[in-house]
């Protein structure tokens, strides 16, 4: 028998008979109570063929880690179609160290628009790291195109991160 609920006399409505404890939701999926949301975004002119450009970058605050949960990367102008590999986006976990986010190092299609980014399950970013969205132009003649993007998510105090976090 469920002891957490008692049946009201003569009625079919169940009411909790004790306080309901709501555990903290996992920080990799939800912003922590002390979390700070971010929605970094930006755009740059398409770099020359063979060159790469940082679309935008941001630094994780001291004492905080974070998770990226929304991604958008867009090409504005002519000369590109998804999956042509003519340009490649990469998400760097730490640009100065050259650390690329695993499985986000060879993005060959738009994963969402800036106004409607796609959801991801959480890219873990670490204290003081410089996170960046980078684009490489493989083979598109430059003619005034723009490349943009957005990374959304939240920072949280390192204390709120479970010790057994898997990534």
């Amino acid at each position, binding site marked *: 028998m469920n002891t957490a609920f008692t049946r009201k006399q003569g009625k079919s409505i169940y009411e909790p008979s004790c306080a309901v404890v709501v555990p903290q939701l996992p920080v990799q999926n939800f912003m922590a109570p002390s979390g700070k949301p971010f929605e970094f975004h930006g755009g740059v002119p398409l770099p020359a063929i063979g060159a790469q450009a940082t679309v935008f970058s941001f630094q994780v605050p001291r004492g905080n880690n974070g998770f990226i949960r929304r991604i958008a990367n867009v090409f504005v102008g*002519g000369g590109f179609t998804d999956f*042509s590999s003519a340009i490649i986006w990469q998400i760097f976990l730490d640009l100065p160290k050259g650390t690329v986010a695993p499985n986000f190092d060879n993005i060959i299609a738009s994963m969402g628009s800036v106004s409607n980014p796609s959801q991801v399950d959480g890219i873990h970013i670490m204290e003081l790291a410089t996170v960046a969205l980078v684009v490489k132009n493989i083979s598109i*003649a430059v003619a005034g195109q723009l490349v943009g993007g957005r990374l959304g998510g939240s920072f949280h105090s390192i204390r709120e991160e479970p010790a057994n976090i898997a990534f």
Partner: protein
Amino acid sequence: MLQFSKGQLVRVLLDKKLSIEGESAPVEAKFVDYLHGQPDWAVVEFEKAHHGGVKFLHVPVSVIESR
């Protein structure tokens, strides 16, 4: 009307705006195809790889001429 056909030999009129590094003169290439959904852009294949190993290039159709 699409003026080039697949495999046609063309000349790409690279200029300062469209140049790949170290190459700004007309470059001989093969027309690969129009870009999907963008008939004013095309993919060309250079006969020899250029700076940085560039072999394929997406260019405006306006800078391509037949040869």
